[in-house]
């Protein structure tokens, strides 16, 4: 058992002849548990390796692979949407400019909003959660890896279809929330609104699949000993976000399909002449819309809560207070959607309830900010780039949050609703509240993902350029909004006096682009040209993902860890340190009970298969077919039904393999 001949890492053979099959039955069952160099570790590496070639690429379902694909694709879409943002800024830099016509400008701002919200912000946060959460809670893969792989392919196909539509002049042109009469059957001309509705169905299906996957992973696959109170704060943030997604995303999926029925089948949900109501769409959309911006904000709070303890060299002050405020923010976010509709003719008393709710939700966030400041005050600070971005986050989020309080008041919102004041607020909250923590998280976990450190010097340049650029671009918009500049206008007359501040904002945009360019250079230089490797724990952090090598082995842990405190690396468990006895020849993990994380059953992760990709393709066929023809709604369901049937059909070879490791409950 312990002869030290090194097992060659040969790729798993695809066709095993009958003789070899018998041989594998007689081979003794190899279990994990001993360290990195052992035979079991080499066998684990081979078991968890993806199949070679294109088929292997398409059927990979490791959580690190899917998570990384989500993040990379999200940043590509963000780059494209950012260019659109830049184009709009230059069109508005001067009065009466003819850089871009009205129709193309409407597509630009609709695509900028839709791509940033549906194709960048939520997927990148879910991508980070998919990558980091299993590592942080000490397991080898997420609960439903094939479902997340299918979600990624749906996300990629949905994004490509939307940008493809934009390329063929069919991009959505009614804004990222497509209010109905304009996106409805009569005024939504051509197939543009159909593509938007289809994309919403895509991105919500993707979001729901990943949310269910992450929720089950966090509740059932935590390392033994990691009770709910000892779960890291980022894992709490991911749990709260996923549960919120499960309750909010079905709403807009339903709403978008109702608009699609109105457009294609002639139903009357939003037709005022036949009993419908355009305001119903605003209720449907914003009931999802506000939790949507909190899906983006709460994971970012999770990033900050993961980064501050490491760079303050002490555990987080008020851990439980932050957990409770995360949960409270999650609940309250469902109660304030009407503050997007204060200018409509809803009853005034009803609106004032939503003012009260909008003010109340500021308190949990304030509590978290005070706890972070207390942690920083009581710690010894390591001033590296991730921490710089967190400090930038404080500054910009505070401005965004306070303008949010102003917008929450009904009378004041009547003056500033749908003006550039709102554009400034949403960019301050989204860039301050999500993009800054995202960059901090990127610099923080980059060594873990790629094994190489991003350069500090370029990081600081990127931070300062981005910080100045964001403030210079978006702060003047507050004043423009107060001078009456409405949202979504492609041009304005010289007599309006908005030209000077718009020029300043366009200049800020240039600095923004410079900062992002520096970030891209930093990325490329580090990944392709840098050679020296980062250690397993370059920042001296406390959570489990820093206990494995960088980049982590395919199976994450050669022996699943046991946890005894909130920072397992800072205060390791006294006696029992790891789990042993899981199979090294099939992909196996350990499920634990929900509250106290007691070991419960062994769980065989599904092996990589092509079916998630095929299923995503079949759903694409259905959705595209239903946009072009009404029978497509019905007949288009046949390809997905077949794909999911083939996906579920048991694979004989794997069944035999897994039967060897079966234990009766």
């Amino acid at each position: 058992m312990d002869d030290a001949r090194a097992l060659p890492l040969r790729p798993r053979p695809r066709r095993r002849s009958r003789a070899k099959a018998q041989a594998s039955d007689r081979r003794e069952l190899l279990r994990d548990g001993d360290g990195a160099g052992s035979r079991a570790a080499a066998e684990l590496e081979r078991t968890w390796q993806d199949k070679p070639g294109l088929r292997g690429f398409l059927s990979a379902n490791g959580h690190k692979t899917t998570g990384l694909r989500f993040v990379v694709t999200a940043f590509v879409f963000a780059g494209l949407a950012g260019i659109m943002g830049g184009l709009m800024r230059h069109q508005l830099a001067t009065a009466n400019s003819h850089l871009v016509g009205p129709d193309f400008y409407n597509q630009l701002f609709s695509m900028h909003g839709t791509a940033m919200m549906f194709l960048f912000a939520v997927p990148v946060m879910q991508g980070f959660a998919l990558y980091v959460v299993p590592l942080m809670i000490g397991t080898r893969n997420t609960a439903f890896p094939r479902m997340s792989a299918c979600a990624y392919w749906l996300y990629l196909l949905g994004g490509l279809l939307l940008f493809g539509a934009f390329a063929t002049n069919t991009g959505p042109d009614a804004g990222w929330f497509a209010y109905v009469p304009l996106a409805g059957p009569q005024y939504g001309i051509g197939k543009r609104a159909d593509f938007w509705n289809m994309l919403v169905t895509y991105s919500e299906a993707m979001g729901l699949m990943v949310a269910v996957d992450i929720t089950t992973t966090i509740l059932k696959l935590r390392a033994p000993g990691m009770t709910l109170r000892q779960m890291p704060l980022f894992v709490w943030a991911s749990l709260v976000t996923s549960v919120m997604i499960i309750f909010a995303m079905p709403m807009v999926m339903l709403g978008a399909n109702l608009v699609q029925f109105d457009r294609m089948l002639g139903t009357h949900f939003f037709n005022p002449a036949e009993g419908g109501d355009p305001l119903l769409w605003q209720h449907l959309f914003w009931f999802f819309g506000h939790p949507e911006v909190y899906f983006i904000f709460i994971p970012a709070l999770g990033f900050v809560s993961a980064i501050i303890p490491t760079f303050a060299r002490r555990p987080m002050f008020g851990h439980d207070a932050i957990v409770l405020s995360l949960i409270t923010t999650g609940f309250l976010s469902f109660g304030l959607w009407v503050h997007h509709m204060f200018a409509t003719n809803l009853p005034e008393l009803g609106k004032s309830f939503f003012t009260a709710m909008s003010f109340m939700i500021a308190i949990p966030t304030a509590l978290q900010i005070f706890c972070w400041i207390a942690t920083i005050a009581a710690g010894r600070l390591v001033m590296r780039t991730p921490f710089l971005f967190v400090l930038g986050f404080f500054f910009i989020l505070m401005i965004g949050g306070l303008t949010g309080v102003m917008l929450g008041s009904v009378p004041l919102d009547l003056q500033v609703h749908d003006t550039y004041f709102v554009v400034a607020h949403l960019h301050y909250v989204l860039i301050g509240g999500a993009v800054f923590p995202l960059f901090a998280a990127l610099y923080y976990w980059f060594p873990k993902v790629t094994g190489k450190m991003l350069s500090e010097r370029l990081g600081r340049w990127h931070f300062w350029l981005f910080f100045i650029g964001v403030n210079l671009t978006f702060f003047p918009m507050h004043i423009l909004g107060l001078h009456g500049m409405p949202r979504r206008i492609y041009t304005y007359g010289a007599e309006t006096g908005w030209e000077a501040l718009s020029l300043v904002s366009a200049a800020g945009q240039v600095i923004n682009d410079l900062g992002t360019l520096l970030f891209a250079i930093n990325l490329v230089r580090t990944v392709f040209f840098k050679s020296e490797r980062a250690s397993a724990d370059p920042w001296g952090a406390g959570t489990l993902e820093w206990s494995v090598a960088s980049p982590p082995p395919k199976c994450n842990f050669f022996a699943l860890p046991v946890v005894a405190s909130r920072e397992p690396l800072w205060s390791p468990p006294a006696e029992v340190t790891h789990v042993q006895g899981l199979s090294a020849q099939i992909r196996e993990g350990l499920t634990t009970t929900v509250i106290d994380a007691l070991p419960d059953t062994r769980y065989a992760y599904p092996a990589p298969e092509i079916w998630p990709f095929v299923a995503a393709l079949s759903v694409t066929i259905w959705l595209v077919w239903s946009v072009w023809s009404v029978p497509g709604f019905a007949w288009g369901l046949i390809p997905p039904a077949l794909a999911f049937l083939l996906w579920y059909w048991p694979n004989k070879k794997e069944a035999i393999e897994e039967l060897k490791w079966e234990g009766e409950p």
Partner: protein
Amino acid sequence: MNGVHDVLSPAGPQAATLYQLWNVMLVACTVVFVVTIVALAIAVWRAPRATERAKPDLDPHPRKVATLRRSVVWGIAGSSVLLLVLLLASFVADRALSALPLANAVRIDLVGHQFWWEARYESHSPELTFSTANELHVPVGRPVLVRLRADDVIHSFWVPSLSGKKDLIPGRESTIALRADRAGTYRGQCAEFCGYQHAQMALVVVADPPADYERWQALQREPARAPETAQERRGLELVEQTSCAMCHAIHGTRARARRAPDLTHVASRGWLGAGAVENTPALRAEWIANAQKFKPGINMPPLDAAPDDLAAMSAYLGSLR
């Protein structure tokens, strides 16, 4: 279309209330911002520096944690109280908005179309009602009750110097009350995205002293002036026979379609196309020849007519004071 277009320079009670609420909110939020950022700065400034290799400090520091807990609790209590104060300020402002006295109000029936505003001035007897577009005149000091309806998509009526905005939603009717306390021209613009030309759907509310307002109103009730010069007669003939009459109305002539702005007193308006182009003879001829050049995407088709025909039409329309 120039006029005062600024939330920060109110000219009526509604906008003044909102301006005061804005000041209260601005001061409160700036204070909170400065206090928090200063606290953060002090925390970062005073905290000792360390490297990643430094051992994490795990002991509980009971004394330090107690002070920090007390400051966090005070912070939360302070922000909650402040939020409550702002909440009360918001409710008070909201009540003040709805408490505008409406005695002897001017009633305007405003209908939002894709990319222009149709205003019909109601009055007790039907023959005294008249319709105008994009430029509303109101008497200084008298309340104005505007009934808002949308004909196609959602628009939003917003004149920042007079009052907050209100959406015009198809199938729903809403009203907004406002009053101008100072004479002047107050500009507004559609605030809800409504299509290709949402950017050029402006309107102007001209607050006149009551005497001027009565004169303007009397003038608007008159039918169109008969053309005097030969060129104006040629202009009227062209207006009635080419495509103008298919959509526009000029009382007193054979043009009576209501799908586009009423041109009976078009010369009394300073701008054409809801703020797209100034109402000068040369620009008016150019606008008639090809409105898409100034405002691409609107429903007014270009007219291929000889230059002197265009000049005649422009002259005739220019005579309709």
